[in-house]
């Protein structure tokens, strides 16, 4: 039961440090340079919106296969290698090519070889090209390449999502990846996430292409090669647009909503970077009096006629906008296009008043539970119960400190976790007290009873807590959202209660023993 001064000081030091670290939770930061770590309130307590979004990986793969088909077509043209079939097979992640003349297989293989790119840390080829004697060539995307592409798509989506959300002025949004293809978006204080869902629901891939004025889009005939029929955003009438992209939205540097000085109509003004500006100038110069289409996600926003070459690198889109829709389009264009569509697969939105109610209910329960436990311990264990109660308070402070250091999130289930920890934490003290009592009743003198009591109880405390600890680590790994918060508080609570029971209680009891030297322990 002897504690060296150093050890006693260390134990008290930990408690004081815990108090210090948990203090920032009570006050706002006095200065921005001070480290001010606090426990965060979960969305279920402060109100806000949680969106789980899935990146459409099929679309990512489809785009890659489509561009491969294009590249293959281009690669085969110079050698005059003709084919019967050239198609993408999406479910197999490959494209299939059948040559008209099987004798040209080798030539085709040589022509296609440059399509293979090397990716990843091992420089693994991203394509597996196999030929068979009948002139069939398959090009399969390797799993490594698929994985690399998928994670790149998610990373890029996160970036774009962040930019779009930042434009809306949401304070403190959190955007993180979950699993291979999902993105978690947490929006504190947002009661109605509709606008944000709309902003995130568009890929917003904008292209500038020429209109094919010879084809009739509404005659019911299939489009000629290299042309597609796209609906107008207004009215939905189809218009024939060339597939070839002349200028891509990625070349935009800025887009702002504004009104047209003459008509007073809402428009979006945009600026190209130098590359885009040059290409736009070339296209408009070569096609004066023809129409070009501004296409956003397979919808034609507008298809104006080119009256004169546009060389200034900037332009204006008009298409029956309202103030809101012009502004939204400007936001989307500024933030850039998503690599693939996003769908919301889970939404949880909680209003601030419900959150406040939960905080109140949690606080009342915590206080009541705390008082119950304290009264119980005092009643059934007397002085040693008060030692336990003091440890319980320190335990709460240490838990708060740990959670602040980790900047953990406190959720409603997390508050339930704290309550349960309160109940479980005194278990260690109950074990110790019962054991000391038992040892004393077997005739051991006080000091020996204390010594043995702590020693024996410790093995039990360790074994019984280790099992609980393990099962909550599992909950943390497999749980999600608020449940994770529950697992975090309980695991932290177990760790801190082991410290207070084993170190602090023993220190308190030993100090008391030294100063009182009782003949009989009041257990």
């Amino acid at each position: 039961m002897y504690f060296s001064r150093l050890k006693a000081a260390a134990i008290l030091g930990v408690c004081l440090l815990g108090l210090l670290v948990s203090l920032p939770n009570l006050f706002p930061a006095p200065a921005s340079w001070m480290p001010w770590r606090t426990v965060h309130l979960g969305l279920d307590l402060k109100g806000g919106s949680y969106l789980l979004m899935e990146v459409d990986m099929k679309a990512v793969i489809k785009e890659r296969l489509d561009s491969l088909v294009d590249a293959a077509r281009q690669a085969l043209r110079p050698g005059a290698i003709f084919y019967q079939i050239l198609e993408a097979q999406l479910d197999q992640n490959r494209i299939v090519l059948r040559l008209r003349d099987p004798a040209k297989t080798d030539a085709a293989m040589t022509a296609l070889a440059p399509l293979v790119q090397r990716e990843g840390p091992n420089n693994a080829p991203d394509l597996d090209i196999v030929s068979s004697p009948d002139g069939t060539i398959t090009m399969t995307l390797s799993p490594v390449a698929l994985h690399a592409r998928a994670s790149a798509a998610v990373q890029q989506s996160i970036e774009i999502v962040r930019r779009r959300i930042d434009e809306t002025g949401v304070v403190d949004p959190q955007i993180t990846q979950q699993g291979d293809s999902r993105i978690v978006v947490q929006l504190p204080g947002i009661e109605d996430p509709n606008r944000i869902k709309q902003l995130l629901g568009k890929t917003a891939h904008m292209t500038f292409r020429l209109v094919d004025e010879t084809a009739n889009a509404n005659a019911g005939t299939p489009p000629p090669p290299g042309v597609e029929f796209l609906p107008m955003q207004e009215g939905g009438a189809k218009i024939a647009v060339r597939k070839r992209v002349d200028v891509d939205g990625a070349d935009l540097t800025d887009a702002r909503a504004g009104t047209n000085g003459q008509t007073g109509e809402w428009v979006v003004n945009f600026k190209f970077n130098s590359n885009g500006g040059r290409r736009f100038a070339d296209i408009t110069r070569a096609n004066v009096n023809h129409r070009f289409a501004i296409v956003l996600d397979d919808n034609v926003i507008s298809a104006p006629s080119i009256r004169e070459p546009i060389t200034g690198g900037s332009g204006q889109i008009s298409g029956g906008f309202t103030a809101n829709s012009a502004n939204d389009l400007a936001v989307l264009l500024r933030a850039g296009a998503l690599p693939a569509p996003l769908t919301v697969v889970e939404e949880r939105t909680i209003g601030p008043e419900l959150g406040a109610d939960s905080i109140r209910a949690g606080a009342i329960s915590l206080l009541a539970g705390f008082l119950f436990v304290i009264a119980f311990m005092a009643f059934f264990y007397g002085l040693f119960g008060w030692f336990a109660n003091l440890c319980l308070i320190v335990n709460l402070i240490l838990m708060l400190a740990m959670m602040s250091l980790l900047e953990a999130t406190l959720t409603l289930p997390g508050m339930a976790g704290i309550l349960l920890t309160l109940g479980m934490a005194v278990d260690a003290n109950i074990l110790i007290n019962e054991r000391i009592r038992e040892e004393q009743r077997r005739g051991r003198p006080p000091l020996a009873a204390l010594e043995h009591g702590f020693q024996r109880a410790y093995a039990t405390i360790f074994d019984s807590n280790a099992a609980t600890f393990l099962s909550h680590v599992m909950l943390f790994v497999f749980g999600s959202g608020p449940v994770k918060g529950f697992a975090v508080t309980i695991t932290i609570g177990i760790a801190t209660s082991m410290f207070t029971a084993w170190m602090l209680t023993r220190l308190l009891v030993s100090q008391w023993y030294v100063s009182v030297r009782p003949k009989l322990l009041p257990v």
Partner: protein
Amino acid sequence: MFIRPRMRLAPDNTNFKFMNGRIAGLVVSAILSTASVILFFTPGLNLGIDFSGGIVMEVRTEGPADFQKIRGALVDGHIPDQGVQRFGDESTVLIRLPTQPTEAGTQVAVSKVRAALEGSIQGAKIVRVDAVGASVSSELFRNGLLALGISLLMILAYIWFRFEWQFAVGAVVTLILDVTKTIGFLALTRIEFDLVMVAAILTILGYSTNDKVVVYDRVRENLRKYKVMPLRDLIDLSINETLNRTLGTSMTVFLASLPLAIFGGASISGFAWVMLFGIVVGTSSSIFIAAPILLFLGEKRLRRDTVAVEAPEPGAARQP
């Protein structure tokens, strides 16, 4: 109150013959668990949105909610299959919609309800929206089961490693019986089974394990101390010796959870009631299930094994 304990939960030196009731304990437990399994199939669990998928919206109205009007507004908004029920106080209403065919359909349905309510009912406020798509709900369910299964395996492995296999098997069989009873309780009370309930069950697992380990720990200690005492008497002795602790800890955890059940609000009180049930089940199963199983499994083997391997501690040798 401040120095001496006022009271003991159980007197010292109790000498209950718990193992006399071992058959009765196991039979009662078997009946309850069988009934729970039946309840699990009919009527089954009241699956919450986390696992069933779909949409739940909590709406607050000014003054008592007018259900007729809310249903009318939803019907006018062309929202089929909706369920409207009271939730907590009388001005709070829960609207449920089943899983929509597509993820996009779910989002559309949420906006439709929002528009229908906020347009036609004065002062109605949507304070909570939970929309879970079909793919996510099945994943959450799988992860929940996985967490449960892996937890059980880890507890099995840990107790095996620290004790003997008879202890580990006894504990895990008891835990499985505890879990089935909790599920029966959920099916009977129609408390919604969601992710938070998985957390509750895992907490009960943790608490129950904790309780069993304490009794087992004493059995292990007494096995070293009393070399000729029959296992049956030894287990009885161990339970009696730890009785005050068992009751004390279950009381504190019970007392800590009780306010949550009463004041915790509609969304968390279900969790607390399940916890309270689990504490009672977990505590009694340590005595009436885990210990008898240990007795059956260990009657012949445990004595010889342990004594031969481990030398008695010097402290224990001096005991009467």
